[in-house]
């Protein structure tokens, strides 16, 4: 669990981050969203003390980070950034091994860990371990950047616009991978982005920053249904709001009894996918099946439309 308590950073008279407090529960992902200059990067950098707060406290599992030697603190927290920051003079394996080497792991354990991580990110260790970063594609560099951040098995991972430099197709894949890896490893992740779509897709909770202040902190559904300010509403974009709301829930929770014709949709897909399928194929209802293909019931156009409306 990470607690931010009254975090403030001033440069001269200007407060870049102004009295921000929220808590990130263990094993969840919190996404900090804001425009450039909102203080979101400064905020995340205060967690591993790349920026020292002017006032306020960060507690990790109850322990005040200011009492931990700064290098120890950083080695215990994974850190991935935009443009990955891979060391160009080191191979992929050496890059990934950075923190384990700093921590003094033995060579055998490091080699095993590098191999595990490359496998986890679907990069063949035989092919990739010996390559230099400039011999990789942008998407591969990004994956190695995240692998490096996870190398020493940190409980916490900080990510500062990690997908900012990727094209949309690779970005979508990277987001899916991150979600899967977070579920699998149970890492507590704080991710900074300017992209509300990314925040809604990834975040268990979203913290919206504007002008150095925290304007709203809640679940994606909270933000969509009860935006705290006009600014949050603008970020969400009113035009897409129903679809984003539907994208948060699985088809499973919208299943109604009954049957329908035509190809079925899996219960694990999002309600947004189901709605898109209904509109596209001109049907009023879709059969729903579970992961093993057994029929569960159906979703209806009317049911989904009701779910995408403003909650009363």
């Amino acid at each position, binding site marked *: 669990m990470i607690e931010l308590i009254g975090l403030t950073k001033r440069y001269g008279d200007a407060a870049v981050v102004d009295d921000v407090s929220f808590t990130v529960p263990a094993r969840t992902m919190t996404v900090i969203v804001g425009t450039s200059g909102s203080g979101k990067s400064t905020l995340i950098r205060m967690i591993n003390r790349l920026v020292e707060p002017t006032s306020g406290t960060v507690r990790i599992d109850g322990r005040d980070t200011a009492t931990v030697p700064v290098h120890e603190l950083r*080695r215990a927290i994974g*850190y991935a950034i935009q443009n990955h*920051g891979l*060391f*160009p003079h080191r191979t992929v394996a050496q890059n990934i091994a950075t923190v384990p080497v700093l921590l003094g792991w033995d060579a055998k354990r490091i080699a095993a860990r590098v191999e595990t991580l490359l496998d986890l990110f679907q990069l063949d260790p035989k092919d990739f371990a010996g390559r230099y*970063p400039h011999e990789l594609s942008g998407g591969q560099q990004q994956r190695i950047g995240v692998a490096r951040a996870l190398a020493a098995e940190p409980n916490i991972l900080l990510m500062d616009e990690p997908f900012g430099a990727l094209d949309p197709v690779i970005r979508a894949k990277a987001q899916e991978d991150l979600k899967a890896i977070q579920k699998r490893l149970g890492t507590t992740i704080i991710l900074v982005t300017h992209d509300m779509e990314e925040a809604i897709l990834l975040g268990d909770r979203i913290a919206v920053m504007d002008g150095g202040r925290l304007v709203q902190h809640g679940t994606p559904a909270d933000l969509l249904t009860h935006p705290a300010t006009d600014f949050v509403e603008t970020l969400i974009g009113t035009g897409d709001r129903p679809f984003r709301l539907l994208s948060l829930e699985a088809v499973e929770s919208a299943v109604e009894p009954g049957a329908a014709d035509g190809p079925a949709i899996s219960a694990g897909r999002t309600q947004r996918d189901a709605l898109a399928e209904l509109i596209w194929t001109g049907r009023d209802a879709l059969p729903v099946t579970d992961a093993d293909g057994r029929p569960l019931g159906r979703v209806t156009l009317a049911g989904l439309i009701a779910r995408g409306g403003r909650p009363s």
Partner: protein
Amino acid sequence: MAERGARARRLPRAGTLIRFAAFAVLVLFLAMPESFAPVFAPLTTNGAPAIYDRAPLIDLTLAHLGTVAVASLAATVVAVGLAVGVTRPAGADFLPLSRSIVNIGQTFPPVAVLALAVPLFGFGERPTLFALFLYGLLPIFENTLTGLTRLPPAVLDAADGMGMTARQRLLKVELPLALPVILEGVKISTVIGLSTATIGSTVAAKGLGEVIIAGLLSGNMAFVVQGGLVVATLAVLLYDSLGALERRVARRTGRRTG
């Protein structure tokens, strides 16, 4: 890609061949200068000797290279040390001062430094070493400074974020990445030193300048030309080898120079 690689490999081959030939001729000349006498004889008058005979050319060449090596090594250690110092947060205030000192070293002509150094160090190697050392500081200092201040910010941010100490960051990230640029400075400094070292002979330092000066004093063109050619060939070969080393290091860091 394969095609470009093949071409890149073929191109240096011609150059390498010429360099090997030049090196072979140089070694041959230094090993048995007398056999080259017919080549230089047309440059002499009144039956003067065609090949310098007051000291073996090979000894003079080695002494010359030794002087340059010692001076360049000292200049490298001091200049890199200074540049590292003034790029640390604690040393930033000393950047203007260090720049001035290093610039003064470059502004004084080596001849003037030699003249001023003789009363301090006496005649011989030492004033030459001092002049070359001072003269060699600037290119290495400026290049190291450039190398250390133009590193990709994301890489430095990552190094800090991973929990490297300032020392680990310097040794594992900053210096290795700046190495190609630093080496370029060392190359420039060393090659300048190689040619400048010839004037050391005016204050009785052992070196190839002796041959040229003897030729100038006695009006023997053959001496002037052979002394000049040896220094020039050494300079070109040294420049090329240091350049090759620099490119090799640069390739390893995934950067291209030039």
